């Protein structure tokens, strides 16, 4: 049943239907509404049995989730931006340990300068943490993806990050159909951990692995992660059938008039809707939305893009000094094909991505390899002008560090 809901609320209600056992939470905008709602549900007994832990940091949140997950409880948390980076070490660790945690990342820019609005710098920074990354194009998908995420995570024993554009989705009210409890229960069986802390089977989890086996550990993790796309497709189909809504069937990549198009715009997340509107009015242009960004579904992307004459990758993050992050992935997926792949950096730090700008951009005859959408040229010119009149900075002798800090390893 579709209801007018805030995106965060829909996500929270869907997560609750997934029956998490432990939710460690730490507030950070724009994720906060999700965990607030879950906390209230736990308080009211609507979500039970479940422990809602108000931890002291995102690092603790992910750590507690690891502990809970490896003790046999379905664990969930949500974060954004600085919070994601603050928990980075534990994010990698969760993947290394194979803890099937599901985490919502309400995508937000990374400071400095501090900025609370949307871009995807945060999840992009952790794209190689070993997690599966799913990007929600809209709020219905944002809700649905959480069910799929838990199922996928637990099937593969790999953690899953569901990326939702901050504010744009998390704070948007729209009609959303939160999956019914019975449907979720049908799609998502009780959590059966691959390995668990158990007095009756006292294994050692988290051993130290040296050069003799570390490569193999990584190889096997990579192989396991690469099995995610077909599993995801299967689960998504099962879910769509369960909800009786074929249009809600998620795919690793969503082809919108892209196959056979001259120009295909590749994008992740909520910009999809705008893009589809734009290309509806331009002939020969399609949109490819990447829902599963990690593992990178190179085969599926290549299959769609193989006939295109031009690829434009719309990036909501910037790799300073290297431009487009997704662009690199797309280029490698198209290895051997003689097709230009152009990067458009757009929507950083919450700047709106307007349809008019996109339309103008796609119509531009000679698009450069890298374009910053709606860049304020006057500001740039003025600042570059100021820099050229400054004296060059004299080379200074590096001062020796006074005292080096202790290395990060045990006492």
């Amino acid at each position, binding site marked *: 049943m579709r209801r007018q809901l805030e995106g965060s609320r829909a996500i929270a209600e869907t997560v609750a239907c997934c029956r998490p056992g432990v939710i460690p939470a730490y507030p950070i905008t724009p994720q906060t509404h999700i965990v607030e709602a879950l906390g209230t549900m736990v308080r009211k007994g609507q979500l039970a049995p479940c422990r809602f832990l108000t931890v002291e940091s995102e690092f603790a949140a992910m750590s507690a989730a690891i502990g809970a997950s490896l003790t046999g409880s379905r664990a969930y948390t949500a974060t954004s931006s600085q919070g994601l980076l603050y928990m980075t070490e534990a994010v990698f660790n969760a993947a290394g*340990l*194979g803890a099937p945690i599901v985490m919502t990342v309400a995508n937000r820019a990374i400071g400095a300068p501090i900025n609370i609005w949307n871009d995807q710098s945060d999840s992009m920074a952790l794209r190689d943490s070993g997690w599966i990354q799913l990007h929600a194009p809209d709020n219905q998908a944002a809700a649905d993806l959480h069910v799929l995420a838990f199922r996928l995570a637990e099937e593969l024993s790999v953690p899953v990050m569901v990326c939702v554009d901050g504010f744009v989705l998390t704070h948007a009210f729209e009609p959303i159909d939160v999956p019914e409890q019975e449907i979720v229960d049908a799609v998502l069986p009780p959590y059966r951990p691959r390995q668990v802390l158990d007095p009756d089977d006292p*294994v*050692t989890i988290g051993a130290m692995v040296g050069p003799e*086996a570390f490569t*193999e550990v990584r190889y*096997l993790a990579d192989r396991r992660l690469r099995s995610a796309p077909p599993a995801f497709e299967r689960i998504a189909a099962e879910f769509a059938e369960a909800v009786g809504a074929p249009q809600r069937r998620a795919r690793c990549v969503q082809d919108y008039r892209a196959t056979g198009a001259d120009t295909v715009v590749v994008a992740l997340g909520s910009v999809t809707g705008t893009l589809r509107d734009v290309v509806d009015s331009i002939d020969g242009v399609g949109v490819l939305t990447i829902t599963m960004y990690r593992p990178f579904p190179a085969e599926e992307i290549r299959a769609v893009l193989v006939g295109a004459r031009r690829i434009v990758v719309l990036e909501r993050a910037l790799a300073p000094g290297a431009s487009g992050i997704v662009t690199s992935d797309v280029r490698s997926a198209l290895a051997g094909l003689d097709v230009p792949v152009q990067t458009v950096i757009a929507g950083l730090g919450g700047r709106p991505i307007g349809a008019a700008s996109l339309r103008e951009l796609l119509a531009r005859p000679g698009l450069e390899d890298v374009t910053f959408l709606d860049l304020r040229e006057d500001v740039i010119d003025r600042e570059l002008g100021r820099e050229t009149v400054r004296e060059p900075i004299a080379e200074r002798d590096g001062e020796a560090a006074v005292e080096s800090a202790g290395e990060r390893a045990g006492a």
Partner: protein
Amino acid sequence: MDTPFAITLGPGSSSVNRTGTWRTERPVYVDRLPPCNQACPAGENVQGWLYTAEEGDYQTAWRQLVAANPLPAVMGRVCYHPCETACNRAQLDHAVGINSVEEFLGDEAIRRGWVLPTPAPDTGKRVLVVGAGPSGLSAAYQLCLLGHHVEIRDSAARPGGMMRYAIPTFRLPRYVLDAEIDRILALGIDFRPNTPVEDLTAEHGFDAVFLAVGAQLAHRAYVPAAQSARILDALDLLGDTAAGQRPQLGRTVAVYGGGNTAMDAARTARRLGAEEAIIVYRRTRERMPANDIEVTDALEEGVRMKWLATVKHADVGVLTIERMELDEHGVPQPTGELEELQADSLVLALGQDVDHTLVDTLPGVRVEGGVVQVDEHMMTGHPGVFAGGDMVPSARSVTVAIGHGAAAARNIDAWLRGTVATPEPEREAATFERLNTWYYSDAPETVRPRLDAARRVSDFAEVTGKLDADTALYEARRCMSCGNCFGCDNCYGVCPDNAIVKVPTGHGYAIDLDYCKGCALCVTECPAGAIDMIPEPD
């Protein structure tokens, strides 16, 4: 569990990693010779029987005790306990009251009628023991247990020798002595009282002889005296008193001499009614041969001491005393200064001599300095004739005599079998420095109760009381088991590598060399110093 590769491991799988290869030294359990055992002239395994007594198994402890000494109740009263003097615990607080525990065990045995071991089957050998004092009884007992037929002859009417005729009853009640001697004789020893042996060459039918006639002749020293001055020998005084008589000594008694007999004589005199008993001795207290315990007891009972003094002349009721002084060698020299000392009687306690007429006719036997010479096997120069106790060069105590008897028995047994007794292997000393005394509880000694001095001089009741079962247990448990494992589990507990395993036999522990890294924590933390590190063999 479908555990992931390498990240998750099976429990305890490290046991395939043999860390013993890291080791350059390895621990070994040792049995060091504790100072009590080393000091015991009777050859008791003091630490051994204390160990058993600690567990409250008094009968077994007593059995270990009587393996060396068949007279524990006696020894618990009269031994000067060199074991306690040597005891390492003295360096921590006070020596373990070994002697009092021994007495307790001895008395328990009498009270409960514990019996001595059954002798071995008859060897057909016959041994004559001359003298039923501690040495003779000890030898007879050991020989009898070894299966030899033993005949003891003694000139006295009753067995015990000096224990019966010289030690006052307030130190050794006779029922104790009788009980322990009877128990020995009951093993099947043929005891012949009132049977002095005068000519050994006339004795036939024995395969070996052990001489233990003691030193029973009062040492003769000339003291000029008036005809009617009352002068008597200490041994006579002690013997008569022990026999139940009450010799008349007068109000003031002087005892001449500084040995244990002098102390016993002075203390006996007090009990016989002497208001004053004065020891006259030519040297100082430090140089007195008497045991310090006896001197202290005498002083407590009001006995006075006159040091650096000799008796020049004895008159009726008065002695003339000459003051002495020690020269640079510590030898007393007369000063010519005289004084008078009121004394109704003078008791001479100037030492005892051996009556060696018995061996004078025996070929090969050598007498030097008044005592019979024996070799390292306690045999005289006459094959098959052994000697021990006070009649051979020795410290002359009951304890030494018992040790002689036991040693002689071992040697006689070997001789009878045509072999030579092998000495005990040398063991390194269990010194105090090797102990980790931290672990021992703070525990001052349990002092045996004693009669107060006023009552002591009024009758012949036993001065020193006894431990009860609780206090005996406490005292036994003060033993630090120097140099020998006593099962405290420290090594087992402190090993970071779990490389010490408990085993049901032996020391109770074994080193698992597969895992022992050789850290030596077990050595440091062993309270008893019973583990050594030795270099790893190549």
